[in-house]
């Protein structure tokens, strides 16, 4: 198949089996590939039974935090007489992350089916899929699939004649990274400014429109039909390293590798195999310098840390970083780390929602200091200042956007201090022009 390159033997295609297969986008095509069998099963099951299956599978949130999905679902109240909501977080905006996009583009019905099952599990009648505004092509594909699913009776007031109501609304974002934060996402759906909310109350108590709500990532929900059809034990068995990390994970690899793209691996595959075998390694004559393994919000890893790292929640955490969203940014020896960290800080400064003082002012100030260093105007005290600002930006705000910015600065200075010093001492020529 043409998608974008053939499946590598070290990949484990589950979610990505039909990537590149245009016919899988249609309702009929999806059913022909075994689709909607899981939803028909779920319609016969009790919510508790679905939750138990997902708990047993060990599925954890694929959006970044890695919270056990079944557990999250079980926090939803039972028989409380209030409407419940499921929100699917398709606001994939983290720099370096583009794995949900492939699900939305190629297998939209997998997501719709996953959402429908998730809604049944948490006793919700309505699902909102919040899709990143810039995802124009995926949006049109997803919306067409939702329309088809309604027409086919899979969704609606009487899903597959079961008497159960499953409504699904695709809501487009308007271009703010912060709306991928789950409480900001709910605010955005409600038509408010997309600012994160203070927790508690947690969404399971008071979420969308003040009602009990669960928010799940696209990849998490898309995995659920497979768990129901093939069994929790099968899914839990997909684990090469830590038994706490089960199933498969889509990893979107970008940067200085020969074959960037979205790959699906079994949890725990070594990061070295992922980068050097599946992605074809560095370009000729280049060597690995750094990897940001889980989207731009997690600490930077050095080649030493990459070489014996298992790509799962525990493996990467053991190396001081996080699996995060699975958006992997690979950088080779031509990379200017100071510049890259400045670019990320600039991103966070641009995207800060402006609520919390530390984030609003801290991300912008951090960016200015990094720009100053890159202009060759840095001061000897700048690194200490950056680290102190990072401390003032960590663990002190409503959401973790400011922590994410600080993480890059702290891990960057810790692991690549020499590059900063080269600018500060004048050993390296300024990389930014005067402003």
């Amino acid at each position, binding site marked *: 198949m043409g998608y974008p390159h053939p499946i590598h033997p070290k990949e484990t295609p589950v979610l990505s089996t039909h990537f590149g297969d245009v016919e899988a986008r249609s309702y009929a095509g999806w059913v022909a590939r075994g689709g909607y069998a899981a939803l028909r099963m779920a319609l016969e099951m009790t919510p508790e039974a679905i939750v138990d299956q997902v708990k047993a599978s060990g599925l954890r949130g694929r959006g970044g935090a890695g919270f056990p999905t079944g557990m999250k679902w079980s926090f939803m109240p039972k028989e409380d007489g209030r409407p419940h909501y499921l929100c699917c977080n398709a606001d994939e905006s983290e720099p370096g992350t583009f794995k949900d996009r492939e699900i939305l583009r190629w297998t939209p019905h997998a997501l719709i089916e996953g959402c429908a099952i998730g809604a049944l599990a948490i006793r919700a009648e309505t699902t909102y899929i919040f899709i990143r505004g810039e995802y124009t092509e995926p949006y049109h594909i997803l919306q067409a699939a939702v329309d088809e699913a309604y027409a086919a009776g899979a969704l609606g007031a009487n899903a597959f004649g079961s008497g159960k109501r499953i409504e699904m609304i695709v809501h487009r974002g308007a271009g*703010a990274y912060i709306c991928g934060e789950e409480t900001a996402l709910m605010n955005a759906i409600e038509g408010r*400014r997309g600012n994160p909310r*203070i927790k508690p109350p947690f969404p399971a108590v008071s979420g969308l429109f003040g009602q009990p709500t669960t928010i799940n990532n696209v990849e998490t929900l898309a995995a659920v039909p497979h768990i129901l059809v093939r069994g929790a034990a099968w899914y839990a068995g997909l684990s090469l390293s830590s038994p706490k990390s089960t199933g498969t994970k889509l990893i979107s690899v970008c940067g200085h590798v020969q074959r960037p793209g979205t790959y699906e691996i079994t949890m725990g595959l070594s990061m070295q195999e992922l980068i050097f075998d599946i992605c074809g390694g560095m370009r000729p004559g280049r060597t690995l310098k750094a990897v940001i393994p889980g989207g731009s919000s997690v600490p930077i890893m050095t080649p030493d840390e990459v070489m014996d790292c298992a790509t799962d929640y525990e493996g990467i955490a053991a190396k001081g970083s996080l699996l995060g969203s699975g958006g992997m940014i690979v950088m080779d020896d031509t990379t200017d780390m100071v510049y890259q960290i400045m670019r990320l800080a600039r991103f966070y*400064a*641009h*995207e*800060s*929602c*402006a*609520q*919390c*003082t*530390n984030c*609003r*002012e*801290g*991300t*912008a*100030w951090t960016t*200015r200091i990094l720009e*100053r260093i890159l202009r060759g105007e840095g*001061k000897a005290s700048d690194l200490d*200042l950056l680290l102190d*600002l990072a*401390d*003032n930006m960590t*663990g*002190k*705000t*409503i959401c973790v956007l400011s922590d994410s910015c600080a993480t890059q600065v702290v891990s960057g200075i810790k692991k690549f201090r020499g590059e900063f010093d080269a600018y500060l001492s004048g050993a390296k020529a300024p990389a930014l022009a005067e402003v």
Partner: protein
Amino acid sequence: MTTEMVSVTIEGLPVSVPKGTSIIEAAKRAGVMVPHYCYHPSLPSPAVCRMCLVEIEKFPKLVPACVTPIVDGQVIHVHSPAARKAREGVLEFLLINHPLDCPVCDQAGECELQDFVFQEGQAASRYGDYPKRYNPVEDFGPDILYVANRCILCTRCVRFMDHVTETPVLNVSERGDRAYIGIDPSAVLDHPWSGNVVDLCPVGSLVSKDFLHKARAWDLDKTASICPGCTQGCNIMVDTRDDMVVRLRPRANLEVNRHFVCDTGRADYRWMNRGDRCETPMVAEAGKLRAVEWPDALRRLADLVAAASGPVVMLVGGRASSESLGWLRTLLDGRALTAAMKVPIGPEAPIGAIPNLALRAERAANLGGAELLSVSGDWTLAVAAAASASLVVVLDVELDNAEAAQVASAGTVVHLATVADPRLGVPTLLLPVTTMVEEQGVYVNRDGRAQRFLPARPAPGMAWPAWRVAAEAWALLADGREAPATASEAFGALAPFAGMSHRDLGLTGRVVTAGVAR
């Protein structure tokens, strides 16, 4: 009481508060101030300024004191090294884009940013020589300017308009450090209560055009008072500079006006500074007024009262104190008396989301007192009765031309005046009295709450409080009578307030009757 109480230790001080109380409020009870900007007790808390982060023992992170309810047994540190460092960091972040224009800023001296930076900020800036964020000053409404450069984005103003006035015309515009307070381009900040955003603003970002560059905060004397504008009875602070009233601001009273006052009340202070005041007692002689000393004037007043054999009419303004109303009534006791208070009517303007808080249609602050003290006869009938009355007593009331003509036609007129009224011709007696900012007294609001006001500026010339004029004349009418020596005594001697003193009312008042709401 069934409220469940929980006990915590804050800065080493044990304190017991109802379950659900936030740390910041619990700390207040313990006498510990947690520095804060976005938190305000009359607004929902967004926990965005991050100033009130405090340390709870055994908690992994600092928590915002404004939204975190206390849990029994917690040990909370407001001034631990971690909490102090966090606040220091926030203050530094707030200052990097804050212009240091305190010398020309109205807020200086009462600025929470100044206060907390002085208290625990860093001595020097680490920001360096970057230009600060610049946005032009914006005209938000009739009395409000937005100085964006000073804004720390606490969003109190946005939340006030959203949740209290329920007219959401303000927002946070833009993101990151480009953010500022935006206003709906088709709107102006002219809600009848919008002036409160100036008081809510912890810095000098929202300023009153009326007060702009008028006085420095440290030159002001502040006096607790009651708004004389309507029957709501909002608690206010009268700010004077060199004995001139320069500003009226709300004073907290959770039972009456929470932390707010309406724009009408806020703006209505110019009459307090009038320069054309009556300063000397005058008696009519051969068609002219002649200045006399108080004893002569009081003797004349007592004689006029004693000689009044026919109907007597008493016409008073809505700003008269209960003491004055009561003692004029006492003075005229036993006469065929028609007593009425003039109650101007204006549009009612509720604040929005707070029940029972509005600029009231009845623009007479002491209507409640008038009703309690039987000075609440029909105004039109009372004015009509003036022409044929044997004695008309007028107390500080603005008459229209027709009313003035009726009063002027009366044979004997005693005018207890703050300002002389030429339309009344030559009154028999013209006695200078103080206004409510020059005397101590009590108003009773529409809910029957008796509330004190205190003197904020000296009385002009020989002016006396009207109650004192009445009481001294009353004492002359019979042997053995002694006039009360103080306003508080004058208050306690009146039947509806029997046995009470001003002190009993405290600074937030006390309900003395089930309510005279109309």
